[in-house]
């Protein structure tokens, strides 16, 4: 059986079908989005929009396609139909790297890159489209990660430490939108609270089983 088609928010500029757009141009939006995986339709005709400084929580049971949707919003996968737009311009027009530099996707289980997180920062500074605008080490300290951990190999970091490093690497670029997939799943309540503090005022689309994180951010909730 195919999952029910969801219209989770209004189409940008389309007058709204339950969207809370406030009349402004959404920073990130999606129209008529469809994703199929191995012949199974995860969602189709999906539209959503998030305004500057707003938090949007994608909710739904495991396997309903939350990660697939976030990956599409992060422009890591090709949608089967529909468009993802940043500031009204399609991701396609931005071009993959330029779009992804502005819309930072953080995976639930951060990849263990070669070398140390400090090496990753050095690499990031050489990336054409990316800008390191803030000190990632200081950002991570704010999330409860000691600075010394940046010189440990990625492979020696715990799940929670890797999540905080990955989040700091996203925050340090001051992206226009953060797309976060369960980024507090390996964190204790104290660290999760620090993450919430760091995300306040930022434009965020997140999936989180922990409803308290979304509540603390005042996130609007949409269900898949």
């Amino acid at each position, binding site marked *: 059986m195919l999952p029910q088609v969801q219209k989770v928010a209004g189409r940008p500029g389309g007058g709204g079908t339950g969207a809370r757009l406030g009349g402004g141009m959404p920073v990130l939006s999606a129209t008529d989005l469809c994703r199929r995986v191995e012949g199974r339709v995860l969602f189709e005709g999906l539209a959503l929009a998030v305004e500057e400084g707003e938090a949007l929580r994608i909710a739904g049971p495991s396997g309903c396609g939350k990660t697939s949707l976030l990956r599409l919003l992060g422009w*890591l996968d090709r949608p089967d139909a529909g468009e993802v737009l940043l500031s009204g311009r399609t991701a396609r027009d931005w071009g993959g*790297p330029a779009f992804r530099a502005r819309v930072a996707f953080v995976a639930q289980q951060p*990849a263990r890159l070669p070398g140390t997180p400090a090496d990753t920062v050095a690499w990031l500074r050489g990336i054409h489209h990316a800008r390191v605008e803030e000190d990632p080490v200081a950002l991570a300290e704010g999330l409860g990660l000691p600075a010394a951990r940046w010189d440990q190999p990625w492979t020696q970091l715990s799940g929670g430490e890797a999540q905080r490093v990955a989040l700091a*690497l996203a925050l340090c670029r001051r992206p226009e939108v953060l797309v976060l997939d369960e980024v507090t799943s390996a964190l204790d309540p104290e660290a999760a609270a620090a993450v919430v503090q760091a995300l306040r005022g930022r434009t965020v689309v997140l999936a989180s089983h922990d409803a308290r994180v979304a509540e603390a951010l005042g996130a609007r909730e949409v269900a898949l």
Partner: protein
Amino acid sequence: MTGPLPLDAWQLLLAAALVLVNGGLSLWLRLGLEKKLLVASLRTVVQLSLVGLVLTPVFDLAHPVPVLLVGLVMVVLAGREAVHRSSRRWPGVQRTAFLALLIGPGFTALLATGVVIGADPWWRPQYLVPLLGMLLGNALTGISLGLDRALSMLDEGRPVVEARLSMGATWWEASRPVAADALRAGMIPILNTMSVVGLVTLPGMMTGQILSGTDPALAARYQVMIMFLIAGATALGTATAVLVSVRAAFDGQGRLKWGWIGR
């Protein structure tokens, strides 16, 4: 200097008797290799005899077209073998291996006969065919190792590549470490060979030349040239195969494709 001593059928049979020792060992230790050994031995006899039969008229015709045709067939067969040896493949890998072998060993062999050795004419089969064969044999090993490494890093290492992409990296910025590692893997065998050549191994070409009565010093100079040519051909071929394959793994938006790598 004298030419090589004649080699009759009974002498080949005598050499083949040594393969029986392998068969005996396989039976004794229950290795189950007897059938493979028999097939491999028969293939050796048939393939090399056929090469001898084909090359004799090609040498006699003294025309570039049959020589280049033989070279093309060798490149195609080497391309198939390079792909066959790699545990992973992608839809265009066969064409890519062919292109890589044309650019690597193909170009290097022509450069060697036309410029380095200065054969007259440049397609002289006595030089071009064996040189191409040696370059192909080594380059296909490098290409298959390089392809295997690149494809496995893109497949199993997808989260790492995508982590780089999601930080704004282009396909090349995200996959440059993959390409570098794959190139390194492809070059290791020839670098290892170059380190020990002459100390623990006498390469086939040098051995063949010495057996044919060539002055060992001249045979050594030829072998030095061959080693350099092999290194160049392997690097060019492996780089072509790896770079084309890595680029093909990403779509026009710099996203790593799904379901693109098969086994």
